[in-house]
C-alpha cells in the first residue's frame, strides 16, 4: 500500500499542472461510476443508482458524462463537475457501447438485443433514427470528420459503415470472429477493428474499405485463446495504437506506420477498455477481474501504477476539470 502511494505521488509529480483531471470508470458489477483525481489517483466520488453500467463517454467539452446503463435500458447523464444526475436519454434496449459524434450533439448507441443502432439527439433527447445492422451490434467508432459511424456486429462478424447524415449503411467489411471495437486513426486513413474470438485486429484502408493487414498477437507462455483483443485506442499523433487483450491481462503496443506489435504490457486481469488522459500523456485501462485501473505512461510505455476502483470496471473516460 505504501508502495502504491509512493508510486502515485511520483505520477503526480510527473503530471505537473495544478488542475487535476478527473477519471470516470464504469463498474459493470458494482452498478456505479468511480471518479478519480488524476494527480493523486484517489477515489474522490462514487456515483450510484444505475444498473450494469458499461459504455461511458463524455461531451467534447468534458462537462457531461454519458453512461450506457445496460439493465436500465437507457443512457444516464451526469454533470462532470457536480456529479448531479441530469435527465436520461432513451437508448433502446440493452445499450452496451456508444460513440459521441464530434459535433457533441448526437449519440450513436449499439443495442445488442435488437440488432439496431439508435441515434439520439442529446439536446432534445429525441431518437433521430434506428439503423438496422447485423446480429448483436457491439463496437462503435466514428471517423474524425464525423461523416461515418462504424458499428461492429458480434455474430455477423462485420463492420457496418453508416453515413451520419442519411443513416444508411454505405459499406460492410467482413472481419474476424466477434468484432468488439472500432477506432479510426486521427487522419481517418485507417480503421482498426478488434476481433475478440478471432484474436486479431483488422487494419482497414478507409479509401477502399479493404483490409490491408490482419494483426495477430503472440505472448510466449500465454495460450492463444487467452489473447482476446477488445478495446483499442490510437494516440492523438497517430503514431501508436494500444490494444487491450482481455484475459491475457496485457495491452499490446502497435506501431501504426508498420502495423507491427512492438510491446506487450502486463496491466491487470481481464483488461477491457482503454481511455487517454485529456493531454494524452497517460492511458488508463479497466481491468475487470482485478477490479482496478492501470496507468500507462504513453511516452515510455511503462505501467506506472494500478488503482482499485469498483467491482468489474468496464469503461473509462477522462476529462479536464475546471
Amino acid at each position, binding site marked *: 500500500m505504501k508502495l502504491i502511494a509512493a508510486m502515485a505521488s511520483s505520477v503526480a509529480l510527473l503530471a505537473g499542472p495544478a488542475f487535476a483531471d478527473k477519471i470516470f470508470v464504469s463498474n459493470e458489477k458494482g452498478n456505479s461510476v468511480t471518479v478519480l483525481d488524476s494527480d493523486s489517483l484517489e477515489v474522490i466520488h462514487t456515483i450510484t443508482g444505475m444498473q450494469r453500467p458499461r459504455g461511458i463517454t463524455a461531451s467534447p467539452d468534458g462537462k457531461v458524462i454519458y453512461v450506457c446503463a445496460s439493465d436500465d435500458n437507457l443512457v444516464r447523464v451526469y454533470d462532470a463537475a457536480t456529479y448531479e444526475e441530469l435527465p436520461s436519454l432513451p437508448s433502446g434496449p440493452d445499450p452496451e457501447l456508444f460513440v459521441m459524434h464530434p459535433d457533441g450533439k448526437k449519440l450513436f448507441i449499439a443495442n445488442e438485443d435488437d440488432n439496431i443502432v439508435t441515434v439520439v439527439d442529446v439536446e432534445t433527447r429525441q431518437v433521430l433514427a434506428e439503423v438496422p445492422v447485423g446480429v448483436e451490434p457491439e463496437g462503435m467508432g466514428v471517423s474524425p470528420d464525423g461523416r461515418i459511424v462504424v458499428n461492429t456486429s458480434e455474430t455477423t462478424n462485420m463492420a457496418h459503415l453508416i453515413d451520419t447524415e442519411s443513416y444508411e449503411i454505405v459499406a460492410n467489411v467482413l472481419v474476424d470472429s466477434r468484432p468488439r471495437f472500432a477506432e479510426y486513426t486521427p487522419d481517418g486513413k485507417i480503421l482498426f477493428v478488434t476481433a475478440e474470438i478471432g484474436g486479431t485486429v483488422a487494419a482497414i484502408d478507409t479509401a477502399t474499405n479493404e483490409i490491408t493487414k490482419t494483426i495477430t498477437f503472440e505472448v*510466449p*507462455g*500465454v495460450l492463444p485463446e487467452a489473447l482476446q483483443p477488445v478495446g483499442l485506442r490510437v494516440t492523438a499523433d497517430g503514431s501508436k495504437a494500444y490494444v487491450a487483450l482481455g484475459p491475457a491481462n496485457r495491452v499490446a503496443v502497435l506501431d501504426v506506420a508498420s502495423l507491427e506489435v512492438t510491446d506487450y504490457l502486463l496491466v491487470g486481469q481481464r483488461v477491457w477498455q482503454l481511455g487517454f488522459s485529456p493531454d494524452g500523456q497517460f492511458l488508463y485501462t479497466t481491468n475487470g*477481474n*482485478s477490479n482496478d485501473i492501470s496507468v500507462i505512461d504513453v511516452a515510455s510505455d511503462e505501467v506506472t501504477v494500478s488503482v482499485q476502483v469498483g467491482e468489474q470496471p468496464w469503461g473509462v473516460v477522462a476529462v479536464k476539470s475546471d
Partner: protein
Amino acid sequence: MIRFLAFAVLLAWPVAGQAAGPVDPDWPCVQRRQPQLSVAQLWSGPPVDAAIEARAKAPEIRRLAEVIALRRTSMNQAERLVEEFAQGATREDLTALFLATFGQIQTARDRVMAGITRYAHQQEALDSQIEDKRHRFQEMTEAEPQDFDAMDDLEEEIDWATRIFVDRQQALTYVCETPVILEQRAFALGRTIAAKLPRQP
C-alpha cells in the same frame, strides 16, 4: 398439476438464464471455462527457466509460497512476508517465489475445477432420479386401485430430492466464483512479488 409444472421448471438443466451456447456436461458455470492458468498471464518479471524451477523447490521458498497462497492469509500479511523475504533476495529468488506460489494456487484451482465437474455430474444424476420418480408417481396415480400410502411416500421422496437439487443449484453460483477468486489471488500475489524485484543492473 401446479406442483408438477413447478418441478418441470426447477428441473430444467442447466439452469435457465445461463449463457446460450453449446452445453458442456462437465462445466455448469456461466463463467467461461479456463482449464489452466499460465505464468505469463500473471507475471511480467524474469522468464522462468530450469534454474528458477529448481530454486522454487527450495524448502524456505516452498514454505513461504504455501503460506501466502492460502486465502486465509490476508493480502496485507502476505505483502509483509514477501517484503521480509525480498530483503537481500535476487530477481531469481523472487521469480522462484512467484513460481512456487503459482504452483500452489494452480493445484488448489485444479481441485476446485475437478470438484465443479463432479458436482455437475451429481446434479445430473439427481435430475434423472427425480425424473424417474415423477414417472413412477404418474403411473401410480393412473393405477387401479390406488395405493395412497406408497404415493405419499414417493411424493415425500420427490420433495426432498427436489429441495436438495435446488439448494445445490443455488450454491453453484458461489462454487463457480472460486476459480476466479483463486486467479485473482494469484495475480495479486504476482503483482506484489514483482513490485519487490530489485532493479536490473
